[in-house]
Structures are given as structure tokens and as C-alpha cells.
């Protein structure tokens, strides 16, 4: 036998298996090699003379971290070598039929990214704090949307209407927030709006067993139509009364906010962002640690089984997607109560679909989905930062970056992922 048979994770006396071996796929090795080659080529063909400065602090810190200035091309080459080593090592591991460990991936990613930055930002200053906090900001609606998506699909309801929920949330937040001149009222309105969209989704997908993808897609169109129509007919004409909501401004969390690097990135944000932290924590905890979560997952994996132990599948699904809708709606509020205090037609720009990508990319797990959304936020913010500095890459290509990254991630790293078994399948009782 070519590969060793080892008794692994599953205690064999309980399994009908002949054994367990580790299967390694070469994806990791391939991806690392390709990425390294790519970086190597750009640096080789467009060498940058000059230095790159990494600024780790913001003026408002009292503990000022130093600026780090490095020679661009040299640094790039050094880090390329690091990448080459990592890639080589992962190839060796593959030959030895061993998985590429996570830490190697992490080191590689850091090396690659810093190397790329050093090259691309030559002659400029990378505001690390701004880069990361901006990424977070761009990711907020995506994370809310992704959380909503995860909840829905874990209960077996595919939610393509995330975009609709975000948009409806943004609209409601702007309108109610302005009318009552209260940010919190706006936030609540956004949650209600998201819930309403979810309710329609439920009505058609759960009660009337209409294909969930159809409902989702059509709902997005419906919400775009409605909000745009109302925008032109109602909001735009009365902009000052109905489309100029107050904003959630950044709140510095006492002690935490003063931690160098971490503080300015995570703890000098608006209330909505703090809500996001809470949402991620609560969703994760309740999904995996509470009775409610156990039942949601059961309903998403095997509704009939859940039914046979007296769990009301339909009610559970409704409850879950309504909550999911509220969460996604909150994300919508971010557009009009934090980013810019006004609503514009189709202002989510398809963010819901990106969130959907994050759900799948994150393998239906709240934490992983959050990370996926953050990665996307990072890529899009990096694009901006570099074009401000005036990078050698044309702005159109920088604008492409986040989407290309996502494709690579989904094709290369995730591959076939296993959704909840009953995901997207309406439940009929006999």
C-alpha cells in the first residue's frame, strides 16, 4: 500500500472503515507557486526605485508607534524569497503527502502582501491603520449581510435576497431616520425593513414552496424597483425632510481605543460597528451553543428528523429568516446612517451578492463568513489606498482586485464546499 493507513480522528472500533489516510490536494502548492510567480514577474519587470513608508500610528494616538521606512524593491525581493521558500516547502509537503499547515499559509500571505505593498506603494506612505480600519468599514454591510445569509441557509432557506434586504434597510433607515431625526429610529426601521423582505421570502419560499432562488432574485429586483421609485417620487422631492438622516459618529471606547494599532482600527468606530462585533459573537454563540441553534441546524440538515422529535420545522425556519432579515437590514442602515447621510438608488451596488459569496466562501460558518467579508473589504480598500498613493497599476485594475481575489479564493481555497444538507429544499409534510 502506497499511503500509510493510520487510525485517525474517528475511533475505528466504531466505524465500518478499513482505515483512514490523509488525502492532500495540490491546490495549496499550486496557488502559492502561481501567486509567487505573479509577484515575481511584476517586481522584475516594473522595478520601483525609492522607499516605502509604513505608518503604524495615527496622529491622535498618544503612544506613537514609529514609521517604518524600507527600500521598496529590495524589500519586495526579500519577501519574494520568503514566498518562494513557503511555496517550495508546501510542494515538498505535498510530495510527502502532507497538508500545507495553516501557519505556513499565514506567513506566506503576510509576506506576499507586505512585499506587494512595498513594491506598489514605492515613494509613498502606507497608512496601515487607515488601510485596515477602512477595510473594516467597507466590510461592515457585507458582514451583516453574510451573517443573515448564514442564518437563513443554516435553517435550510437559501437567501439570495440579501441585497434586497440591505437596500430596503438603507432606504428605511434614511427615510425614518430623517423623519424622526433619530439614528436609532433609523436603525430600527432598517431592521424592520429587512425583516419585511424576509417575510415575503418566507411566504413564497416556505409557505408556498416556490423555488428559493427564484424568490430571492426576484425580490432583489422588486426592492430595487420599489426603492428607486419611492426615491424619485418621495425622497428626492423632499430631500431635507426625508433624505437627510443624522449620522452615527465614531465613538472611542475608553481604554481599548488607546491600544496602539488595535485601538484606532477596531475601537474608534461608530455604534453600528460595535453592534457588528456583538452580532457576530451572538450569532456564532447561539448557532453552536444554544437550544435554538441546535434546532436551527437540525432543521437545515434534516427537517424530517427534526419534525419527528417534535420540532416545528416551518416555524423554526420562519423565525430564523426573520431574525436573519433584521440582521441584514442593520447592514443596510450602515449605508445611510454611517457612510453618507442620504439614500441613493441602488446604492448597495450589489453588495448583497458579495455577501452571498462570503457565505459560501465562509462555508456557512458565521466566523469564516465574517473573515471572507473582511478579506473582500481589505482588497477593495487596498485598491483605494494604492491609487491614492499613485501606484504603478492602472486604477481600473486596482478596482478589479477584490473581485479577482474572490474568484481565486473560491476556486483555489474553498472548492467544493458542503452546504447544510436540506439547504434550499422546501419542507413538505406527508
Amino acid at each position: 500500500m502506497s499511503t500509510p493507513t493510520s487510525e485517525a480522528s474517528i475511533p475505528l472500533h466504531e466505524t465500518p472503515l478499513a482505515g483512514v489516510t490523509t488525502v492532500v490536494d495540490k491546490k495549496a502548492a499550486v496557488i502559492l507557486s502561481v501567486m509567487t510567480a505573479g509577484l515575481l514577474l511584476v517586481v522584475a519587470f516594473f522595478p520601483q526605485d525609492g522607499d516605502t513608508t509604513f505608518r503604524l500610528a495615527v496622529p491622535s494616538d498618544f503612544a506613537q508607534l514609529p514609521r517604518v521606512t524600507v527600500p521598496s524593491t529590495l524589500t519586495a525581493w526579500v519577501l519574494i524569497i520568503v514566498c518562494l521558500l513557503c511555496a517550495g516547502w508546501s510542494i515538498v509537503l505535498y510530495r510527502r503527502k502532507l497538508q500545507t499547515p495553516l501557519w505556513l499559509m499565514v506567513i506566506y500571505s503576510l509576506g506576499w502582501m507586505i512585499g506587494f505593498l512595498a513594491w506598489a506603494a514605492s515613494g509613498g506612505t502606507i497608512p496601515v491603520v487607515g488601510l485596515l480600519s477602512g477595510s473594516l468599514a467597507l466590510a461592515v454591510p457585507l458582514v451583516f449581510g453574510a451573517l443573515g445569509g448564514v442564518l437563513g441557509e443554516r435553517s435550510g432557506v437559501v437567501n439570495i435576497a440579501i441585497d434586497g434586504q440591505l437596500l430596503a434597510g438603507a432606504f428605511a433607515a434614511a427615510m425614518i431616520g430623517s423623519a424622526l431625526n433619530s439614528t436609532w429610529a433609523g436603525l430600527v426601521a432598517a431592521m424592520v425593513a429587512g425583516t419585511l423582505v424576509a417575510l415575503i421570502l418566507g411566504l413564497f419560499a416556505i409557505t408556498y414552496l416556490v423555488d428559493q432562488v427564484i424568490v430571492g432574485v426576484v425580490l432583489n429586483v422588486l426592492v430595487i424597483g420599489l426603492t428607486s421609485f419611492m426615491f424619485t417620487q418621495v425622497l428626492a422631492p423632499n430631500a431635507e425632510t426625508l433624505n437627510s438622516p443624522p449620522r452615527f459618529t465614531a465613538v472611542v471606547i475608553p481604554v481599548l481605543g488607546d491600544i496602539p494599532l488595535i485601538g484606532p482600527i477596531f475601537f474608534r468606530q461608530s455604534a453600528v460597528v460595535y453592534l457588528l462585533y456583538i452580532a457576530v459573537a451572538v450569532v456564532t454563540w447561539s448557532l453552536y451553543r444554544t437550544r435554538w441553534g441546535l434546532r436551527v441546524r437540525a432543521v437545515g440538515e434534516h427537517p424530517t428528523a427534526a419534525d419527528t422529535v417534535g420540532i416545528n420545522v416551518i416555524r423554526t425556519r420562519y423565525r430564523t429568516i426573520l431574525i436573519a432579515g433584521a440582521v441584514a437590514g442593520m447592514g443596510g442602515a450602515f449605508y445611510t446612517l454611517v457612510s453618507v447621510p442620504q439614500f441613493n438608488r441602488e446604492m448597495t451596488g450589489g453588495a448583497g451578492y458579495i455577501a452571498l459569496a462570503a457565505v459560501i466562501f465562509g462555508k456557512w460558518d458565521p466566523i469564516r463568513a465574517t473573515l471572507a467579508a473582511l478579506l473582500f473589504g481589505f482588497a477593495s480598500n487596498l485598491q483605494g489606498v494604492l491609487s491614492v498613493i499613485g501606484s504603478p497599476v492602472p486604477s481600473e485594475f486596482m478596482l478589479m482586485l477584490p473581485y479577482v481575489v474572490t474568484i481565486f479564493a473560491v476556486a483555489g481555497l474553498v472548492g467544493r464546499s458542503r452546504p447544510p444538507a436540506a439547504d434550499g429544499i422546501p419542507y413538505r409534510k406527508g
Partner: protein
Amino acid sequence: MSSAVGTEQHPPTEPDEAPDRNRWRETFREIASGGVTVGFLAVLLAIVVGSVLIAATDEQVRATAGYIGARPGDFFQATWDAVWGAYTALFRGSVYNTNAVSFDQGIRPLTETAKFAAPLIVAGLGVGLAFRAGMFNIGGRGQMLMAGAAAGWVGYQFDLPAVLHLSLALVAAMIAGALWAGIAGLLKARTGAHEVIVTIMLNYVAFYLVFFALSKQSLLQAPNSFNPKSLPVKDSAQLPELLGDQYNLHLGFVIALVAVAFAWWLLERSSLGFRIRAVGLNPEAARAAGINVGRVYVLVMLIAGALVGLAGANQVLGTVTSGITVDLDAGIGFDAITVALLGRSRPLGILAAGILFGAFKAGGFAMQASQDIPVDIVLVVQSLIVLFLAAPPLIRTIFRLPAKEAK
């Protein structure tokens, strides 16, 4: 649809009562079994909702509502005016312009409807075909952009005899669209990457690629111009107008009809179509029967992309011949999804749905121009129609129809 987002194939836990993988067909059988009445009522309901919106946001109506107690007549008069005005305008803009002096002028809207229907039909076929293989092609926009760019480039770059030039441009468009969609198919087949994600992302990538090309003199941008726009397409590459100059209807519509015929043959009569349907309805069984599922995914996306590509060509070579721009897809890539859904992913259904939506599009302009009603209302009505048609039981409940035994 077997690979709805997040619903890859999974071994059913209870073989005997395996979940019906064929939820497309099922939903659509529902639509069909809904029968004419239900269909009619669904459309009616959608229009009613639209009317409510129109009335509710009409100044006149709101003004009169202020004193509805005092003079209710005004209110109802105003409401009637608003709604009636809107839908007559819709009719004038999409079927026959009753204000027109001559018949030739009067019938023009109908030709406009056909003009707008053409790209919706071909793109709808592209989306629908993918649906039939259990794939969700949200990438219409990107495929149209790449195809349109290719067609446009061929269109202004070369000097060729008319027929040859046009065919060459069309072929270029189909190839470009096919390749762009093919990426998604290939990635799904090879790495299992979810086509929904990939096609969405490719939309953005295509947009910025074309944008980049349009801002570089060396690439697509018109010489000594500064706008992100290419040179206009040469006459020899344009889709000839069918009914002479006073109408905009061009060959694109005929191409759409041909495409419908082709798609029908492909799905119902060809062996590839047989495999496509098998894969769409039950990938495991297809695989066990020696059908290379991965290859089918790739082929389907290639064909779908080519069809959507035709929509791109239709835009650049027919509807807006003044040159390539980044918004040549004009939202058709997404509308195509609704068209495919309404058409139940069947070629003939898509033909009908495409014409209906074309009419809405054409009528929308008149509605906006004469009644000041934003065209977005059309989106609302369209999506409501699809929703209601998909849920006959709902319609029955609403209109108190006798519930009829499903299956």
C-alpha cells in the same frame, strides 16, 4: 434547480423519499397547472399593486386626499386619472400610439417593443439554458460587455463587405461571451467553485476590463477622443433595419427568433440537450450513466455565454451603434434572469416573456415622458408578475378560488 446557491448535490438521507431535485420543473409545472385564470389574475394583481403605488405617489391624488372628506369625488377622479393615464401611456408606448397622425407612426411602438425584446430573449435563453443544466448564470452583464466590446471592435476596426463584416462581428461576440462564461463553467467543473459567485465577480472584472480598454487610445478608445467610448460601428457591420428608417427595429429580432428555434432544438431534440437536462435534473444519475457532468457544465456555459453574447452584439451592432461604452449591457444581463424565470427556462416561454418585458420597457419611456412616472415602476410590476405566477396557491387564496389538488 439542483445547484441553487448553497445546494450542491448531497446524498439524500432517506432514499425512498429523496427530496425532489427537480424543483425547477416542479415550480414551473405549478405555474403551468396554475392555468390561464391564475396566470391572468397574477398579472392583474401585479398591475393593481403597481396602480396603488402610482396613485399613492401622485401629487394630485395626495392633494385631493387632503380633503377627501370634503370632496371625495376629486380624490377618485385624480386616482383614476393617474392610473389610467399611466397605463394608457404604457400602451401608447408599447403597442399602438393612439395619438399618432398616421398608422405607420401609430404602430411604431410595437416595433420598439420588438427591438427591446430581442436582447432580452437571447440573453434570457442564455440564462435559461444554464438553469436547465442546474446552473445559475448571473454573469449576463459581464458576458454582454465582453461580447459587445468584441463585436464593436470588429465593427469599427475592419473594412469588409457587409454580410461578411456583420457575421464576423456576430461570431466575435459569441466567442467572447462564450469564453467569458466558460471560465465559470470550467472553474465549477474543475474546482467546484460555485458558478453564482464566479459569474457575479466576472461581471465586475469585465466592467473594469472594458472600461480600461475604453480609456486607452491604444486599445478601444476612439482616436483623439477623451471619452470612454469607441468609434461608431461601420455600416457594413450594423444589423440592418427591418422596416426602413422610420422604425428602429433591426435584424436582431430575427436573430433572436432563430436563437429560440436553435435553443428548442438543442434542448428537446439533441443528444447534448438530453445530457444537459439529465445533469440538471439529477447529476448523480447522469454521472452513473456515463455522462461527463463537468464537461456538460463547461459546454452549457459556453453555449449560454454565446447566446448572451448575441445580446451584447444586438446592442452594439443594432440598438446603439455609436460605439462601445461600459454600459452597453443596459441592465439586460440581469433582466434576462427574470425573463428566464418567467419563461420557465423553456425557449418558447422565454420568447413570450421577452416580448412582454420588451413591451414594458418600450412603454416605460412614454409613461415617464407624458406622466412623469419613473420607469422603475416597471421593475416592480415585472417582478411581482414573476412572484405571483410562481405561487398559484397564493393567487387562489387571494381571489378565493377553489384550491385544486396539486399532484
